[in-house]
């Protein structure tokens, strides 16, 4: 009996070694690669013990759902600081829940606003980092490419090549919705790749015809018809705006008669007055149309790290973190132009945490990019601003291949906060060409807007 | 004839936290002959079940030797020809009587349904073969237990308290079955403390107390020596005290005297004495010595004498 026992001890030892070897050499690496729900960061995930327990027992997705509902509650209460960690935990628990990423980045980029409904754009790099994380974890669906591209295209409203990059990835995915695909053409247009955009329309049109033939479902024929009209419009615009003539580069643009000729002088000028501490009145001239133009206006630290002309380095975060630069100020708004002028009060006094005004000097930027303008404005200015000019502020450097309007002014901290020698004085800065205007002044020198209807 | 069971100095020692080492069974020397019904008697906790478990190889002895049917205990081959019915056994309640037999049969590799049927008939359960055990009465459960213990035609049966908790009719049925076993040439080892039962069916008994065998032998020998019991009323107290002696048991209350003397003692002298005291003699009964007496004498120590007198059976 003892002999058998001894043998069995030996067998047991061998089995233990076999099991341990299998586990360490094959099973664990393979499990980690293919089956792990990315549990990393469990300890740092700020979950309560019972939540850790829940997730250990496999209720990860369920728990993410519960937390996500709670995050929405915090959002309603305006407690933005509480939301970021929850969003992070949700994405750790359920890294494949598209909704959490999509809604999370949308919340962060759009809805963390001040009292005047201006977004806190310091959050945009964080939103983009979340988007990158989501894409890394869900590379096979179109959805987060779409969401990220849309963030660039619609919210950041700059750097069109970034939107193009994400939309190009988006259309490669099998699950992409046909109605989303023509966004790529629009992004190409902004990125000055007009011909590529048109070709993309044609590509989609071919597919739409095939789809509509195969399935007479109403939406299919609708998509086909929309593409047809888009292609028509684009071709007409390419001709009327002189795009094709410019491309020929043989002087035919200069010789011919196009809607974009002669370049129109927008006559930009601006004045900024500090009316109350942290409250600026921004007025100025813009000789365009009764309505339709929005000029970007930015107030930021003069030495804001990674700042670029009229924007920030949005792409600087690759990893999601909660590090909002709380000591820096960055305010961006749109100046709505009406009757050849703009006049807006930028009140930053209600949100001292969002606009801390910690440093001593501030840059005020005015920026207009026709590539992002409305089509009826582009009909005059062209996609690249060929039909637009300004004797003082035309800039062909800061956005490659596009003629933009860019002007800057400066204010000091004391001026904005009305402190020190500015305690009882209203600081005013203005462009050298600034002339006072009033809304009642008669409309002269209004740009004649050509239209597709021919009047 | 070789012994069916033989133990030599068989000992089982347990460790107890409060009491240290305890010999639950202490140097047991036991011999059971083939073909007899052997009664293994003792109060609760005397070591009966421990002894049986050692004989069955379910627990290992701490010291000593034991042989069952000539083989050392623990030899699995012996299990093919012995069987065991534990005290108040439990059978899987969801099974029918027939299924129980099939299950236990399968452990021997026996799949003979006719045999199972005849076993059921034998224990008078043929009509209840398809009822589940949960619907069986205690007596029926004990009988199905006996049936399962007969599956392998055992040469030796261990029955642990086979009649415990049964009604008188069930008692009789079980007793009859056990007597049949002996007639079939089987050896039956009964552990019990139901003495009247054992006395009726056993050939030989051993009495174990606190792990030690106190008595062992043929019932006839052990119970040798009948007694005579004399009962008289209106006996004066002075007279009653006269009868006290080393081998006499005297009980006196409310002027009634009961004197219990060994056979061969002078009955006439007692009666004369009582007449002289003008007592009225109620009865003079010669009585065989009972196992109960022996048991109580052996196990119960000095309190035994009193107990015997107060036993209602004795008075009646």
């Amino acid at each position, binding site marked *: 009996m003892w002999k058998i026992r001894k043998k069995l001890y030996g067998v047991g030892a061998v089995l233990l070694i076999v099991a341990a070897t*299998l586990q360490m050499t094959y099973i664990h690496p393979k499990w980690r690669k293919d*089956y792990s729900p990315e549990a*990393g960061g469990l300890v740092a995930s700020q979950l309560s013990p019972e939540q850790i327990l829940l997730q250990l027992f496999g209720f990860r997705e369920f728990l993410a759902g519960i937390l996500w509902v709670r995050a929405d509650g915090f959002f309603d209460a305006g407690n933005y600081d509480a939301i970021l960690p929850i969003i992070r935990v949700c994405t750790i628990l359920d890294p494949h829940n598209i909704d959490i990423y999509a809604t999370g980045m949308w919340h962060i980029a759009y809805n963390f606003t001040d009292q005047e409904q201006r977004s806190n754009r310091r959050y945009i790099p964080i939103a983009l980092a979340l988007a990158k994380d989501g894409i890394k974890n869900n590379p096979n*669906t179109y959805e987060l490419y779409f969401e990220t591209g849309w963030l660039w295209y619609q919210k950041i409203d700059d750097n069109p090549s970034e939107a193009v990059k994400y939309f190009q990835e988006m259309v490669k995915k099998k699950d992409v919705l046909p109605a989303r695909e023509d966004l790529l053409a629009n992004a190409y247009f902004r990125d000055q790749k007009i011909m590529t955009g048109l070709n993309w329309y044609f590509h989609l049109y071919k597919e739409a015809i095939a789809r509509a033939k195969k399935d007479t479902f109403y939406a299919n024929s609708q998509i086909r018809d929309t593409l047809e009209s888009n292609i028509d419009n684009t071709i007409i615009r390419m001709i009327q705006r002189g795009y094709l003539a410019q491309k020929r580069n043989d002087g035919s643009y200069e010789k011919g008669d196009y809607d974009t000729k002669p370049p129109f002088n927008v006559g930009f000028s601006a004045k900024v007055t500090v009316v109350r501490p942290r409250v600026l009145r921004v007025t100025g001239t813009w000789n365009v149309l009764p309505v339709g133009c929005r000029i970007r206006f930015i107030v930021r630290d003069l030495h804001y790290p990674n700042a670029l002309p009229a924007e920030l380095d949005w792409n600087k975060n690759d990893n999601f973190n909660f590090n909002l630069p709380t000591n820096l100020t960055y305010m961006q708004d749109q100046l709505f132009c009406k009757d050849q002028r703009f006049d807006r009060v930028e009140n930053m006094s209600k949100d001292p945490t969002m606009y801390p005004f910690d440093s001593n000097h501030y840059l005020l930027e005015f920026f207009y990019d026709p590539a992002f303008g409305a089509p009826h404005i582009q009909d005059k200015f062209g996609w690249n601003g060929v039909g637009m000019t300004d004797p003082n502020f035309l800039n062909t450097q800061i956005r490659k291949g596009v003629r933009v309007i860019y002007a800057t002014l400066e204010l000091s901290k004391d001026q904005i906060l009305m402190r020190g020698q500015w305690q009882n004085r209203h600081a005013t800065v203005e462009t050298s060409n600034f002339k006072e205007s009033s809304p009642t002044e008669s409309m002269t020198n209004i740009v004649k807007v050509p239209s597709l209807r021919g009047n | 004839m070789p012994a069916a069971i033989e133990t030599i100095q068989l000992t089982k020692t347990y460790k107890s936290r409060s009491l240290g080492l305890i010999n639950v069974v202490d140097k047991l020397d036991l011999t059971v002959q083939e073909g007899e019904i052997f009664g293994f008697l003792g109060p609760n906790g005397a070591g009966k079940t421990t002894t049986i478990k050692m004989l069955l190889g379910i627990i290992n002895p701490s010291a000593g030797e034991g042989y069952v049917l000539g083989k050392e205990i623990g030899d699995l081959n012996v299990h093919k020809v012995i069987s065991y019915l534990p005290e108040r056994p*439990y059978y899987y309640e969801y099974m029918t009587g027939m299924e129980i037999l099939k299950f236990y049969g399968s*452990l021997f590799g026996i799949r003979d349904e006719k045999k199972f049927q005849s076993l059921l008939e034998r224990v008078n359960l043929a009509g209840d073969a398809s009822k589940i055990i949960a619907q069986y009465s205690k007596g029926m459960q004990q009988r199905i237990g006996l049936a399962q213990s007969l599956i392998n035609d055992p040469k030796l049966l261990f029955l642990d308290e086979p009649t415990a908790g049964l009604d008188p009719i069930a008692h009789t049925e079980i007793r009859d079955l056990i007597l049949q076993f002996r007639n079939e040439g089987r050896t039956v080892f009964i552990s019990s403390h139901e003495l009247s039962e054992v006395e009726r069916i056993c050939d030989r008994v051993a009495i174990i107390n606190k792990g030690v065998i106190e008595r062992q032998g043929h019932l006839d020998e052990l119970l040798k020596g009948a007694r005579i019991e004399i009962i008289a009323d209106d006996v004066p107290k002075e007279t009653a005290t006269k009868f006290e002696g080393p081998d006499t048991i005297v009980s006196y209350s409310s002027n009634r005297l009961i004197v219990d003397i060994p056979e061969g003692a002078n009955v006439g002298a007692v009666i004369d004495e009582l007449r002289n005291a003008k007592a009225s003699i109620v009865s003079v009964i010669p009585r065989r010595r009972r196992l109960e007496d022996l048991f109580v004498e052996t196990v119960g120590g000095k309190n035994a004498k009193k107990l015997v007198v107060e036993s209602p059976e004795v008075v009646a």
Partner: protein
Amino acid sequence: MGAVWNIAATTVGEAIRRRVLLVILMIGVLLLTIIPSLSVLSARSDDSVTVGTMFAVMRGTSALLAIVLTVYMIPNEIERRTIYTILSKPVQRWQFFLGKYLGAVLSLLLMITLMTVFMLVVYAIFQNHHASRLLSLAQQPVMYWIEMSLLAAVAICISTFVTPLINIFLSFGVWLVGTVLNPLYDTIANNSKSIPIMKSISKLIVSLVPNFADYDTKNPLINPGQPIQNQGLYYFTTIFYGVVWIALLLIIGALIFDRREV
């Protein structure tokens, strides 16, 4: 082997009639049926929440079943004295032990199959009834069965030397440790910041504790799309790993049970 199978069969017969097990099973099935309504928590990811939660419920229920089923198995036989009638027959102790264990494994197979059927029916009704999807979902319960067989081996091994109540906690503890082993190991052993001794200790623990997390392969089922190479090999290896551990635990259990005074 006849005795082993017959003991296993009666064990199954008894297990499927134990009220406490049936109650646990019913609660599990009930939870499985209400899960689709919980998936409103996430409007677009309802499929992954449904599948993830269904599997979590199934795993938890199965583990509870495996533990409650197994820890009482041998102590009950001793308490009811059925073990004596069996061991007084020509049945070796290891045969009895193995029979009991196989009975537990077969009972778990029955119960997990029942839950799987329920889960698939509910899933087919509320989510998706494509045969290929249902078929791929059915793979995970197979892994759970192996996992629970391993857990049952742990519990029956421990049941040879401790009382059932302590065993419940011990087995549950082993399962818990074995479940968090992978993430824990990743956090410590694969982290450049951990100190070397901690790495060694974590490697030792991973070698000495059966790893239950290996059987949790539901993630690709919750989030389909990423192709996995050699899935068959992984399944085969983990099942083999489970069998090795089960054999080891049964040997230990049988050796202890052989010496045990019952």
